[in-house]
């Protein structure tokens, strides 16, 4: 697989068509110049678009049809930072019950982040049962989700390449273990634009209690333009940075100032024909104004019925906060936002200690909201075009990690890069399947291993994009989400 192409005047045919198909109409300078940067050969496009006498638009987010049929048009990514424990949620391991308390550390010394606190083989404090028609195994930590397993495609054989949070989070978000690359959401919106022009194409709903590991880099657009960066919507205060004036002004002053600015810009533009960027800039101020309205509307959950709120656990501890974000996610995809990403504070899944209590608390905060989201999407017909993705950056070890006082009742599990679970549901996903397997201990994926690039390729596939064809030319080199490694679409998961 070529990771680099010479500037031979030719990009792959499908890619060229892909952009040309969206180059007419209200396509103005901004994308044209973007295109000329990204795909050198599309020269001359600026000249063409300049002659198109149509309303200017901020066209980074112009919806683009994917090269092949998409199953999903929107995606909700429920990112579970910290590393949810696979053998305590989705991957039961009787071996751990049988060998509980046996030493094992020496065999995996190189895979343990904290050797000093490494304990013995540890059984799960949770009870597993089969659920749904498909009989998928889920532990009693997630009773609500267990009721929706027939909608889920569970991957038990995920594997990553680093057992430290930062590199592992970078990898799952951007395809590389370090900072600086566009995130999955940025690539998706770069490839597809957004159906909604009054809201950002990539919205991030972070937890008021705190940011995930790597902070705002989780939704950074890397070398793609900032239009493809995730925009944080806060549930309290000004939902978007600078969305409302820091110093409020009387309405008529705001109006007068806006009129003045328009007239100044009109004067300026009239003197400068053939500079479409000026039209686009004027449009960007209009979009900014529309965003103020559209954002408030999308975030206004008071428009929902009491029963809907209850489905998400809104108004009840401990589900209220995450439930609101899940509901807002639905409201956003309903409005055509392409990519919505949900976070929960810090690393509630990073259960080095207190597995039985702390991991349960993480489940309690998210279980009902997520099950509610799935049910709500389904009842509104949104399940047919929305892909829901759940998972973290890695899994956990089958041995105990002990707290400082070595009290086994408070034990947790250390990081594990060789196995973890994630699931997908919704558009294009076959419900009720369990894919891949780990070894007896749940230590490593051994059957049908799914790498992070495979996972990315699968998500892109569901959106109608091929991971090899979605690239940007940086300094003559093709840069892709899946990088230079081969990636495969997990076919078993497709409906």
């Amino acid at each position, binding site marked *: 697989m070529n990771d680099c192409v010479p500037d031979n005047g030719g990009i792959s045919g499908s890619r060229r068509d892909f952009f040309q198909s969206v180059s007419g109409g209200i396509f103005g300078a901004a994308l044209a110049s973007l295109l000329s940067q990204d795909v050198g050969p599309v020269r001359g496009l600026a000249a063409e678009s300049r002659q198109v006498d149509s309303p200017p638009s901020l066209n980074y987010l112009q919806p683009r049809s994917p090269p092949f049929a998409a199953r999903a048009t929107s995606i909700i990514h429920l990112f579970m930072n910290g590393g949810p424990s696979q053998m305590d949620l989705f991957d039961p391991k009787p071996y751990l019950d049988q060998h509980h308390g046996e030493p094992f550390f020496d065999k995996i010394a190189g895979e343990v982040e904290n050797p000093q606190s490494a304990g013995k083989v540890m059984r799960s404090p949770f009870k597993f049962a089969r659920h749904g028609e498909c009989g998928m195994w889920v532990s009693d930590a997630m009773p609500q989700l267990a009721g929706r397993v027939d909608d889920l495609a569970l991957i038990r054989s995920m594997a990553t390449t680093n057992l430290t949070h930062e590199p592992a989070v970078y990898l799952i978000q951007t395809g590389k273990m370090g900072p600086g690359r566009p995130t999955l959401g940025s690539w998706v919106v770069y490839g597809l634009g957004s159906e909604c022009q009054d809201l950002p194409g990539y919205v991030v709903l972070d937890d008021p209690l705190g940011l995930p590991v790597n902070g705002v880099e989780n939704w950074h657009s890397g070398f793609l333009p900032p239009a493809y960066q995730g925009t944080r919507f806060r549930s309290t205060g000004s939902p978007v940075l600078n969305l409302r004036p820091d110093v409020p002004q009387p309405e008529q002053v705001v109006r007068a100032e806006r009129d*003045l600015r328009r007239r100044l810009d009109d004067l300026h533009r009239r003197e400068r024909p053939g500079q479409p960027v000026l039209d686009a800039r004027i449009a960007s101020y209009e979009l900014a104004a529309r965003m103020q309205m559209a954002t408030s509307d999308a975030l206004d959950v008071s428009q929902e019925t009491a029963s809907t709120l209850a489905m998400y656990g809104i108004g009840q501890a401990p589900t209220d906060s995450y439930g609101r974000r899940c509901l807002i996610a639905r409201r956003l995809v309903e409005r055509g936002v392409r990519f919505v990403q949900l976070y929960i504070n810090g690393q509630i899944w990073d259960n080095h200690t207190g597995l039985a209590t702390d991991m349960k608390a993480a489940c309690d905060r998210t279980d009902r909201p997520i099950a509610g989201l799935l049910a709500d999407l389904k009842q509104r017909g949104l399940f047919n075009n929305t892909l829901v993705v759940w998972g973290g950056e890695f899994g956990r070890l089958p041995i105990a990690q002990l707290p400082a006082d070595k009290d086994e009742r408070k034990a947790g599990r250390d990081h594990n890069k060789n196995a973890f679970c994630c699931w997908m549901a919704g558009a294009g996903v076959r419900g009720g399947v369990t894919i891949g397997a780990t070894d007896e201990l749940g230590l490593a994926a051994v059957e049908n291993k799914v790498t992070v690039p495979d996972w990315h390729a699968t998500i892109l596939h569901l959106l109608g994009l091929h991971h090899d064809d979605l690239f940007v030319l940086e300094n003559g080199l093709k840069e892709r989400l899946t990088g230079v490694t081969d990636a495969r679409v997990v076919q078993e998961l497709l409906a």
Partner: protein
Amino acid sequence: MALAWLLLLLLQVLGDAGVCFAGAGVIDEAQTTTRDAAPSYARELQPLLQAKCGRCHGEKDRKAALDLRTSAGIRRGGESGPVISPRRPDESPLYLRVQAGEMPPDPADALSAEQLDLIRRWVAAGAPFDLDDHDSPPAVPSQHDVVPILLRRCAPCHGRNRQESMLDLRSKPSMLRGGKSGPAIVPGNPDVSLLIQRVVAGEMPPHERLVEVSVKPIEPLEIETLRQWIAAGAPEVTEEVVLEPGDFPEGTDPLVPTAERDFWAFQTPCAAVVPTVSHRERARNPVDAFLLQKQEEVGLKLSPDSERSVLLRRASFDLTGLPPEPDDVESFLSDDLPDAFERLLDRLFGSPRFGERWARYWLDAAGYADSEGKREQDLPRPHAWRYRDYVIRSTNADVPFDQFLLQQIAGDELTDYEAASEITPEVYDNLVATGFLRMAPDATWANITGYLPDRIDVIADEVDILGSAVLGLSIKCARCHSHKFDPIPQRDYYRLLAVFRGAYDEYDWLKPDVRAGLGPVSQDIVGGRLLPFVTTAERRAWELRESELTRQLAEAKAAGAPADRIRDLESSRQAEPMIQALWDRGDPTTTYIYRRGDPLNPGRMVRPGVPSVLTGWTAPYEVRSPWPAARATGRRLAFARWLTDPQHPLTARVQVNQIWKHHFGSGLVRSLGNFGRAGTPPTHPELLDWLAREFIERGWNRKRIHRHMLTGSVYRQSSAVDEQLARVDPQNDRYTRMPMVRLSAEALYDTLHFVAGSLNEERFGPAVDLQAREDGLITPAEQSRARRRLIYVKQLRKKLATHLENFDYPQMNPNCLERRDSLVAPQALYLMNNGTVHELAERFADRIGQIAADDVTRQVEQVYWIAMGRPPVETERVLGREAIEQLAKSWSQSDGAGAETNDPAAHRRALASFCRAILNSAGFLYID
């Protein structure tokens, strides 16, 4: 049973070690093969491989370092390791690549099904080399197979910096010498060798301490290699497989075939003859002539000169990052002498603001940041600012670029700073400049992100920075495989790493300095990356201040001074001044090629050297000791001298191209960091080379090159686009107009403060802190220094000034050669709604009020003079006056004072609203 199975499984899962010594296995198995059914190598395979593969994998052209014409070559394999796995065709790259249709690349050479099957059957039969098997004895491991294992598994505790139990395992003699318990190896007898005993028993490396020293457990295959080596008597080979370019007669390096050296970028630039053109009246200088020549080919010419005020604003932002001072505006607009613009340029080049503007481009290219990045803690680099200041000072002083580069790549090897009786400003600069090579993001300060691959990633980022910013080559591609488009074999990537080995050695790693409170930290930090060699003057001043403080403290304590007085004194102590530097520490470990970029899979050893394709023009790369009995190897100094050789094909071209890009919006080579075949060819090759030669031959003087670009007609052109230009030169490839550009993040930030009259132009020193507002907005902290130019504000990798990100302020990962030019709604939201912008608009209005009092017409004029660098045209004057009056009405109505009042407060607010509208207007944000 279950455990044995598990162990096997673990081997499989955790053993990303790959094949450590596959070569031996290959031949052993081959020898035990029954040959009856096997195709004959000599009669069948050899002719086939010769015909189909020999052209690219032969003696003269050895792509991927692979020679498929001889049995020896096949056995040796290529840069990625063995190409056959006897008996296992489906694991043999030779078979797999051919089967997949990837090889041979030319479809005309494709193998028939029978030929493919022949290879399959031969490999399946054990790949027997019938004729010459008895000639080549089975290979045994040598020190080159063993030393890398010991370096990665043992050396952190038994190596250069620590010899636990007095044991050093880095060489055969030191293994024989052994430690407290005796010799580590007994050649010929692995079972009694302590090394093997301890390792096999699982005692070493000790499992509990692995993370502490960022080491992974030793692999069974590695133990086997150690055992084989000892069993064979611990042989040390002196003859290596020759593969260095110097090992071949000139021009016959099989990894870089002559034909591939012909590409334009690998030839030394030749002075082009300045062309004669038809529109001579527009050709003010040679640059114009080169451009006009290409324009005239399609019936175009340079656009007319811009208006004076446009030119002034353009040059002012371009050279200083700020609008012209109102005084300058008046004097320039009324200067009727023909050289008025040249004299303006002289003033701008002489301004200290020039360095603050142009240093930024170099800092972007170098990847400057005030933090390490990568981890949550975003470890600060509190001393990095000295490098930033060095770049600004050098830019202002126009230090010749060859010296500028020499200092940054090998400043530590220019003078014996340790023995110097005085650290002069020059020696200080030499050391500070090496901070260039310390810019890559780096998380190796933590044990868990300080493993071998993490360290190699840091080195790779430095090579990437060097490759893109200085060499203009995507040399980073050759880390895992020979470059696919340029003749850069993987070997040359690792020869380049060997150049840096004295300072960047993954087996002898200096970690970033860690302060307390950042979690578990390795025990083996050996002195960090700081040098205390600030100028003698600075050091003395600091020592004096500290001893004075010590004296005062002693006095205060003796006198029973109150606790807060003691605390004040204590807190006024200043940290020791240090330099973040890179220096050669001597005695580097051997450099091996890492097959497929994997440090667990080392291949051949290499010696330091420069990319073979770039040799032949310059004086050869020759390493000399920088001074008698120096500890430093001199490798980087030799490299820097090679880079700045007047005949170097790329150094000057790459730099003049970057300067050109920053003036004219696009490089003559569009791909600034890639002059190779995957980059874009130059639009004006003669101009590029003319500039490059001019640069080299006139003393690498950067301001001279700027002048060539700015004094011609090309820079004075209007940015107006008419239909003909839009049609014939839509992308401005022929430079038929100046581009209209948006203010950069820095120019915007600085100018907002500048027009408000509140820009603090204090220069240099530690970076200004950032603060995060509750809603996530990150801005420079409000302190006395907060209104300084943005270049003096901390650039943190994980905490970017949020409002500027939307204006394409880069996150350095690792560097940024070319910023995007984005247009997004959050830019509008920031300028409309942000409190700081609001406040600056009010200050701007106050400033106008002071100059123009209540005279609305004068107010409008002053706003334009200051913000736009010109007087308003009549329409703007009228619009401005009306707008201020309308706004005043709106303000007083909303104050409830009625529409007709002449409320001064409402007028003041109206003026502020007017100012803010101006700061939001396209005329302010765009430069014609």
